[in-house]
């Protein structure tokens, strides 16, 4: 399948992937532009902020996608439903390895920071969110990020995580409660009213 009549930016992911599978390098560039930022952000959050490792995971996931392209069939799966579990599994492997090596960075919220009196900047708020996310159990973190940041629906998350929709609802609900508890003590610091 080609990209006749379009520059690739309008083409669905699956069409682009099949075009790449037939040797179209423009399709590779467009897929890279679409997915690398999202996967990098997702992997960074799953890995508790380890950017270097998140880059490796992103590269590895994209490499697996390139290799899967020639066998890709139209209507078989969504590229996102295929890629996100790959990233999730790669992150899980690295987290387990880290744990075995006792190299687990504690994601304690930075308390006692001299909060700027008025308002925290966006970057600081995001940092606080990522620190709280990093403190969640791995599956809760994954479900919350997929639901509330990546914007997937519960059935899509169920497919990505290979669990039932009810389990997804349970994980996201517990994850949100835990996040709220983790951030409760920082409300003033984050610029929210008590």
């Amino acid at each position, binding site marked *: 399948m080609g990209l006749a009549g379009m520059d690739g930016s309008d083409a669905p992911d699956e069409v682009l992937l099949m075009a*790449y*599978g*037939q*040797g179209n*390098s423009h399709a*590779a*560039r467009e*897929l*890279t532009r679409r997915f*690398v*930022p*999202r996967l*990098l*952000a997702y992997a*960074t959050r799953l890995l508790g902020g380890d950017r270097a490792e998140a*880059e490796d995971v*992103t*590269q590895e996931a*994209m*490499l697996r996608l*390139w*290799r899967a*392209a*020639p066998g890709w069939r139209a209507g078989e799966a969504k590229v996102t439903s295929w890629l996100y579990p790959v990233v999730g599994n790669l992150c899980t492997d690295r987290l387990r390895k880290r744990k075995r090596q006792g190299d687990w960075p504690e994601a304690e919220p930075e308390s006692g920071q001299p909060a700027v009196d008025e308002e925290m900047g*966006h970057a600081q*708020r*995001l940092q*606080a*969110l990522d620190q709280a996310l990093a403190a969640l159990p791995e599956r809760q973190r994954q479900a919350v990020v997929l639901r*509330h*940041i990546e*914007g997937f629906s519960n059935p899509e998350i169920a497919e990505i995580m290979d669990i039932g929709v009810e389990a997804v609802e349970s994980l996201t609900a517990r994850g*949100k409660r835990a*996040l*709220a508890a983790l*951030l*409760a003590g920082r*409300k003033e610091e*984050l610029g*929210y*009213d008590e």
Partner: protein
Amino acid sequence: MTSDDKDLDDLFALARRSRTDVPEALSTRVLADAVQAMPKRVAPQVVQRPAARRTPLGLGWLQASGLVAVGVMGVLIGVMNPLISGEFGNDAYSLSDLMPGFQDVLTDEAEG
């Protein structure tokens, strides 16, 4: 919705809006992998016809055979025509002119 939920939703919205800067080096690595893993386009097979053999004159064997055949036919016509018609130019030749004594042989056989 509690204020906790609202604050959390604000944070999520902020995270969704925030752009992740992708290092140039990572994009380069990903694209290099893409190029390396890219299936090669299947080039249409060009069927090479065997080079036509040429005679020393630069003609193909077919043309050369045709020329030879035409030549042979020309010679045959040239040789056979006088015999068939019994004429060379405007002069008339009888069988006895061409084969002297042949008539005598025929006569002797008839008498004997």
